[in-house]
């Protein structure tokens, strides 16, 4: 623990509690003190049951689609001789960074073009599961990759002496990786439960949709908050399931990494596998983007879009840059503590950092207003700091988890030997921990930057008067029917989000050999 001094960890924990949990606890307290008919809300009427049923169906169907796509995709790109492997690794990650509402715009237009508007089959939990599955399969893919990498190749080789490779994969490799895949499935389940945009678009009534209705049709904050509680409860329950699954599983895959992994020759299946990955790519990312690009028309649209929306683009860049940096600054010590601390601290951070996943953005927004809009914190509420805090509240959980996963792969001995040799913690931090942990920090930064760029729900409620961001601009234009401009700005937003990812990807490819040789990754 002494790699980052306790005071710094405690400071970050306090910041986390104030920024992330403070607003939520406040609004919860306000809800319970203001409501006198609590029982009425909790009463199990047919509507509640149908809400619960819909939410669960959406969750389950999303997980099924995501598993179907993610496990296959992850296996193909890590353990086979699939063509265009590098491209598919990259393209498989992209849906992680796409703002949900942008893909939703693309999908609505796509459905309308294909004549599926209002189609009963698609406008149901199946359709929602399909679209969300396409958006969330990268989580499953990533965890499948980690799981597959963590399998000791000796175990596979031992089995391969007796059985065919196909049999080995089915009986040894996948079962050994299954805990990772299951924990990915849990994440996807939670995300799909709290997603608003897609169920709303396909008109399936889930908890987030109902919460939204309570907010904007009935202006009943208390009821909306109460309705979010089942989501939080499910979410917290799943933390324990996940911990049970991952107990005794170290994330450490250092040993397996350097060794040759067992590869599966596809032979004639090569083309089919390539087509599968290409299909997943085009459905998850390609088609919606294509629709937007076609919708935007010629280059003149982009010129107009840039000219008219430059202040918003600049704001979005600034806010996202500052927010992503701030999130990484406080998430690094917390991620470190999550990876290294004792059981109780770990459970606490684990639970705290899961809650934000389950809270719909509108509740976050109102909670942020209630918490920060007071005379003593004018400096925060009236400046873009409130956005920085809002984004931190929503997204720091991602960063904490990514950084902690990365740090838990660094062997403790490396820290301890430095601890004996060097008195200055800052020197140890700079020369040992940071160089070893930077891939996780960088990945978190890029992810948070992308998420902040696309954030709409909280931004809309707390943005200081006189400012606007790019997603807000896109949505204000949408009503008016400025179809071309909406498409053009959406494309610009996606490009801005893709830029840092592309840079990181290119840098990674350029320096991969150096990095691999000195073992930094």
């Amino acid at each position, binding site marked *: 623990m002494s790699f980052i001094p306790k005071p710094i960890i405690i400071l970050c924990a306090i910041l986390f509690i104030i920024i992330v949990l403070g607003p939520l606890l406040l609004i919860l307290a306000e809800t319970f003190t203001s409501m006198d008919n609590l029982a009425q809300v909790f009463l199990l009427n047919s509507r509640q049951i149908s809400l619960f049923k819909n939410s669960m169906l959406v969750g389950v169907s999303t997980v099924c689609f995501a598993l179907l796509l993610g496990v296959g995709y992850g296996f193909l790109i890590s353990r086979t001789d699939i063509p265009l492997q590098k491209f598919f690794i990259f393209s498989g990650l992209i849906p992680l960074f796409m703002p949900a509402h942008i893909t939703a715009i693309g999908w609505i237009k796509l459905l309308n073009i294909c004549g599926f508007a209002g189609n009963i089959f698609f406008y149901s939990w199946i359709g929602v599961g399909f679209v969300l599955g396409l958006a969330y399969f990268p989580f499953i893919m990533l965890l499948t990759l980690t799981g597959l990498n963590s399998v000791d190749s000796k175990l596979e080789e031992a089995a391969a002496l007796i059985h065919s490779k196909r049999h080995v994969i089915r009986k040894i490799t996948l079962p050994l990786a299954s805990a990772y895949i299951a924990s990915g499935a849990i994440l996807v389940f939670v995300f799909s439960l709290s997603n608003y945009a897609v169920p709303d678009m396909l008109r399936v009534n889930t908890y987030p949709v109902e919460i939204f209705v309570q907010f*904007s049709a009935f202006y009943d904050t208390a009821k909306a908050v109460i309705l979010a509680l089942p989501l939080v409860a499910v979410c917290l329950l799943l933390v324990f399931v996940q911990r049970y699954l991952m107990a005794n599983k170290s994330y450490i895959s250092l040993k397996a990494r350097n060794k040759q992994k067992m590869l599966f020759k596809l032979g004639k299946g090569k083309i089919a596998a390539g087509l599968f990955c290409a299909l997943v790519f085009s459905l998850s990312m390609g088609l919606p983007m294509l629709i937007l690009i076609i919708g935007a028309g010629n280059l003149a649209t982009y010129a107009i879009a840039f000219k008219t929306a430059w202040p918003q683009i600049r704001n979005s860049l600034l806010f996202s840059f500052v927010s992503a940096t701030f999130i990484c600054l406080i998430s690094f010590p917390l991620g470190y503590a999550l990876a290294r601390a004792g059981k109780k601290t770990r459970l606490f951070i684990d639970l705290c950092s899961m809650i934000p996943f389950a809270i719909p953005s509108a509740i976050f927004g109102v909670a942020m207003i209630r918490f920060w809009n007071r005379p003593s914190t004018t400096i925060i509420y009236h400046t873009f700091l409130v956005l920085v805090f809002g984004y931190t509240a929503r997204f720091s959980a991602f960063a904490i988890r990514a950084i902690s996963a990365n740090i838990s792969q660094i062997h403790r001995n490396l820290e301890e030997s430095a601890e004996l040799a060097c008195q200055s913690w800052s020197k140890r931090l700079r020369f040992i921990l940071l160089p070893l942990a930077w891939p996780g920090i960088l990945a978190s930064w890029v992810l948070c930057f992308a998420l902040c760029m696309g954030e709409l729900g909280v931004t809309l409620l707390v943005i200081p*008067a006189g400012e606007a961001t790019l997603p807000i601009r896109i*949505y204000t*234009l949408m009503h*008016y029917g*400025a179809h071309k401009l909406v498409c053009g700005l959406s494309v610009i937003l996606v490009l801005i989000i893709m830029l840092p990812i592309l840079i990181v990807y290119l840098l990674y490819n350029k320096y991969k050999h150096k990095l691999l040789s000195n073992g930094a990754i």
Partner: protein
Amino acid sequence: MKKLLILLFGCAYLFISCLPLYAQSKKQVVLYTALDQIFSEPIIQDFEQETGIKVKVVYDTEAAKTTGLVNRLIAEKDNPNADVFWNNEIARSILLKDKGILASYISAQAKDIPSQFKDNQGFWTGFAARARVLIYNKDLVKDPELPRSIFDLTAPKWSKKVALANPLFGTTATHCAALFVALGDEKAKAYFQALADNQIVMVSGNSESRDRVVDGELAVGFTDTDDAWVAISEGKNVNMIYPDNRGLGTLLIPNTVCLIKNAPHPEQAKQLIDYILSRKVEEKLAFSSSMQIPLRKEVKKPDYVPDYDALSVMDIDFETVAHKLNQSGEFLTGLFLR
């Protein structure tokens, strides 16, 4: 490392000390507006030029997609930041009045606005209105069979051919509540039940209602004049009807402007409200592509914008309508959104 820390703290200090500059300027007023930015922005810029007062604006996005400014105003009640709320409709302004968020201000500019469209205590003042209309596709619906009344739409020939936006949100919600008030609960419920039985198509918003009719998927759609006019002015093969010109009347939904209680800049706020309520603004909104209908005579307007006098306007009390919103909303949720 110590140097680095000092540098870091130095930067943080500078950054924080600069923030108040960013937050405040001399003469300013904070406006929350739900009217589309594309229409409100030019008017606000004119005001800034004429008075030299800086207007800081928060725009709302499409009503059905966001929780919007009303929730923000409610949440900010204890420590208001906004001075003026310019609502593009009326029901939520009344809701804000009920929640004790508005202050009373009777603008001299509002003298000749019909009393149906303003609060006699001055908590809200209406101007430039939109009408609830039916948009129809000219290929699919020929002149003789045009629905002249919204009650025609329960006929079997319109089965699965009519679009209605989500009745919980926006002007559609107001329209439904208005029907509950005008017809009485029983008749209104029967009417909506008939629409549901006739398999009316639920869409997400008034603009989608319009788009589905423009695309020829549906024949007729409930929508607002501004949404319909966007398509008509672009030369799309659609037109609109002001329904029930004889009988119940067409529902007009005015913009409303309100002063926020404990507004931080009350003087500038009143100046801004006076400006927004001026004839100039009604005129500009009439000429804009949102074709808002002026509520006062002698405001210049293009020919395609109907005369207020020529319309048969649904005669209802907006406060009653606003108080009906929850009840009608709950009924319609059960009926249309299972």
